C-alpha cells in the first residue's frame, strides 16, 4: 500500500469538470454523462415547472429553498448545477457548497460546515461587473441518505440564514425527508423522462461520438433504461466502449449492460410453473438460473409482465399469483433468500394453476385451523 501510494501525491484532488483550466485532452475521457450535461437551465429536458421557476430566478426573482425529488437520472443535479452556473458565472465555485452522501453529513457537519458557509456574506455583483444575487447555495445531494438527526439540525439553520443562503435538497424519495424540512422548501417532482426525449438525445450523441447502432436496438436501450437519462447515456457509452470503433452494437451488448434477463429464461420458468412438473426439475432450473447470475429482481419484473400479458389465465388466479409474486419479490429484495423465494413462487404458482380452486380452499382452511391450534396451545 505504501509503495502504491508513494507513486506521488498531488494535493489537488479531482477538479470539477467545469474548471476553466482543465486541459483539452481530458475532455475526451470525460464520461458522456458529464460531457452532455445540460449547460443552461433551458437545455434541461422536460421538468417544465422547475425550469420555469429557475428561469424566473435567473432573471432576478427571489430564489426559494428548493427540494427536487424524483427517480434517478431525471436531471435533478443537472438542473441545479446549470442554474447555479448561470446565476453566479465565475463565482460559481465559491458560492456553492455541495454535500452528498459520501461526505460526512452528521449533525456535526450540519452544525459547523454549513453554518460557517452560510454565515459568509455574499457580494451582489460579479467580478466582471454583472449583477448576481447576494446569495450562496447549499446543495444537499442525496438528502434522503441523511440521518433524521442531521435533518432536524438543518431546519433551524435553514430558517436563520435565509438572508444569505438558499438550500437545495435533492433526493429520490421525498418521504424520507422529514416534514419540517419539506415544508420549508418549494417542492418539485422530477418525472421520469419521456422515451422520445431520451431517444432524441441519444441519437444526437451517437452522431457526435460516431456510435454505430441500429435504431431498433437503440429503441430497446431507451425502453430498458426506463426514463433514466443517465442510465441510457452510460449504457450507450459502455456499449460503444465494449465494441470499439467501427463495429455495430448488438442486442446482447445492450442486454448485458442494462442487466436485462433474456426472455428465454423467463419463458421457460413460466412454462415450468404452468404445468405440474416435478420438484426436482424446478430446483434444477432455479439452480441453473442462479448460475447465470441474472439479477433476481429483474426476473420478477419480467414474470410480472408475463403474468399481465398472458390471456388464458383467469383474473382471479392472476391476482393470486400476483400476490405471491409481490411477496417473493419483496422478500428477495430484503435478504438473500433468492433460491427459497423463487422456489416458493414456482411451487405456489404451479399449485394455483393446476389444482382446482375448491381443493385449495379446503386445504387453506385446514392449514388455518392447524395454525390456530398452534397459537392456542
Amino acid at each position, binding site marked *: *500500500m505504501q*509503495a*502504491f*501510494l*508513494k*507513486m506521488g*501525491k*498531488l494535493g489537488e*484532488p*479531482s*477538479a470539477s469538470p467545469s474548471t476553466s483550466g482543465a486541459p483539452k485532452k*481530458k475532455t*475526451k*475521457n470525460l*464520461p458522456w454523462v458529464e460531457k452532455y450535461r445540460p449547460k443552461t437551465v433551458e437545455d434541461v429536458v422536460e421538468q417544465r415547472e422547475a425550469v420555469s421557476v429557475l428561469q424566473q430566478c435567473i432573471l432576478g426573482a427571489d430564489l426559494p429553498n428548493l427540494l427536487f425529488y424524483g427517480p*434517478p437520472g431525471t436531471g435533478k443535479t443537472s438542473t441545479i448545477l446549470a442554474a447555479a452556473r448561470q446565476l453566479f458565472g465565475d463565482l460559481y465555485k465559491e458560492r456553492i457548497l455541495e454535500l*452528498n*452522501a*459520501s*461526505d460526512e453529513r452528521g449533525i456535526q457537519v450540519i452544525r459547523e460546515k454549513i453554518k460557517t458557509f452560510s454565515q459568509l456574506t455574499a457580494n451582489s455583483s460579479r467580478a466582471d461587473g454583472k449583477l448576481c444575487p447576494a446569495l450562496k447555495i447549499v446543495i444537499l*445531494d*442525496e438528502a434522503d*441518505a441523511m440521518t433524521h438527526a442531521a435533518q432536524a439540525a438543518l431546519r433551524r439553520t435553514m430558517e436563520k440564514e435565509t438572508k444569505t443562503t438558499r438550500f437545495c435538497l435533492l433526493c429520490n424519495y421525498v418521504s424520507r425527508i422529514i416534514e419540517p424540512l419539506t415544508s420549508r422548501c418549494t417542492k418539485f417532482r422530477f418525472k421520469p423522462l419521456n422515451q422520445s426525449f431520451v431517444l432524441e438525445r441519444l441519437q444526437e450523441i451517437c452522431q457526435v461520438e460516431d456510435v454505430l447502432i441500429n435504431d431498433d436496438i437503440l429503441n430497446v436501450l431507451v425502453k430498458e433504461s426506463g426514463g*433514466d437519462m443517465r442510465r441510457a447515456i*452510460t449504457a450507450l*457509452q*459502455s456499449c460503444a*466502449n*465494449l465494441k*470499439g470503433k467501427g463495429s455495430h452494437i448488438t442486442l446482447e*451488448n445492450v442486454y*448485458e*449492460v442494462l*442487466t436485462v434477463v433474456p426472455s428465454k429464461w423467463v419463458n421457460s420458468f413460466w412454462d415450468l410453473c404452468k404445468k405440474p412438473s416435478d*420438484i426436482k426439475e424446478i*430446483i434444477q432450473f432455479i*439452480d441453473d438460473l*442462479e*448460475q*447465470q*447470475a*441474472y*439479477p*433476481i*429482481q429483474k426476473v420478477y419484473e419480467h414474470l410480472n409482465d408475463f403474468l399481465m400479458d398472458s390471456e388464458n389465465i383467469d383474473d382471479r388466479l392472476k391476482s393470486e399469483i400476483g400476490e405471491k409474486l409481490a411477496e417473493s419479490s419483496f*422478500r*428477495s*429484495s*430484503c*435478504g*438473500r*433468500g*433468492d*433460491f*427459497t423465494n423463487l422456489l*416458493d413462487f414456482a*411451487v*405456489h404458482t404451479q*399449485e394455483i394453476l393446476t389444482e382446482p380452486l375448491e381443493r385449495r380452499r379446503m386445504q387453506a382452511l385446514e392449514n388455518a385451523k392447524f395454525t390456530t391450534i*398452534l397459537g392456542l396451545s
Partner: protein
Amino acid sequence: MSLLWVDKYRPKDLSTLDYHTQQAQELKNLVEHGDFPHLLVYGPSGAGKKTRIMCILKELFGTGVERLKSENITVTTPSNKKVEIMTINSNYHIEINPSDAGIYDRVVVMDLIKKIAQSQQIAITNNQREFKVVVLTEVDNLTKDAQHALRRTMEKYSRNCRLILCATSLSPIIPAIQSRCLPIRVPAPTIEEISTIISKICKKEDTAIPATLIEKISKSVNGNLRRAILICEACKVENNLQPNRELPEPDWKVFIKQTATIITHRQSIENIMVVREHLYELLASGIPPEIIFKELITALVLKCDKQIIPQVLQEASTYEYRMWQGNKHIVHMEAFVVKFMCLYQRHLKDLLKDF
C-alpha cells in the same frame, strides 16, 4: 513450483480465457479504448470473477500487476477504534475486502479510496494509465451506509481512480451503484465447458481420466469450476479414477444432509436439540445461513410428499425472510425446522388415518 491445479492452470490473460470468449474480446476492446469505466463484476462463486479481474488488470497495466504484495493497513474509525484490513496490492492496483471491517466498512471505503485517489502517479508515460484501480471484493456484503458512501466517492475521484467491484449477486447492491458501473456478468460455465477444461488440465498433467468421470464431476458441481478442478485433483491424489466412484463432497454438505435426515426421521423434542447442535456447528464453522437454508430446504423438499411441499416452502420463505430481518439466525432456522416437523408429522398422521 507445484501448485494446486486450480492455481496452476488459471488463465492469466484475457486471450487465454477458456469460456465467455466473446465477453473477453469486448473487455479487451474496452481496455484499448482508453476510457475505462468502473466495473461491477458479478457472478456465482467459482465462475471465474477473480480470474477475469486479474486478466483485465494485466491487460490494463501489463505484467507489473503480477508483482503482488500483501499488506495490512489500519483504518481509524471516528470512534477511534483501529480496524486492520488485509490488502493485496501492486504498483497499479489495490485489492480490499471492505466487509472484513464489519460495521466499519463505510470508513474503510471512504478513507481508503480518498487516500488512494488523492495520490497520483507522477510520471505518466504513454504506456501507463493515469488512474489506479481499487478492487473491492464482496461488495454485496457492504452495508447500505457504505454503499451510499461509495456512490459519491466513485464520481468524485473518477479522474484518477477506477473501481472494480466484485459481487456474487446484484440484488443487495443499491441501484445508484449499479447505474454508475458497467456491469460485467460472469455466468457459471456450462457442463460442457467444465468438462473441456478438466480434460485439458488432465492432459497437461498426464493423467488419464475416464470421460464418464469427468462428466460426473462436471454435473455434480453446479457450475462451480473451482470445485470441479479440486474434486478432480482429489480423485487423482486418492489414486481412484474409477468412473463409478463416489465423488468427494465437502463435509458441510454431508453434514446438512445428515441434519435433514434427522429431521425427517423422527419428530421430537430431543431431535430438535440435536438439530440445534448441528445448526450451531454449521454456523460456527462459517457456513453462511443462506447456504444452510438452501441446502436444507433442497434436502427436505426432496424427502417429503408433494402435497405438503407448497406449505413447507411457504413457511421456509417466511422464516428465511425473518431471519434476515432479525439478528439471531439460529432461532429462525430452528423455528423453521420445528415448523417443518409439525407439518410433516401431521401429514404422516393424515396418511395413517386413511389406511
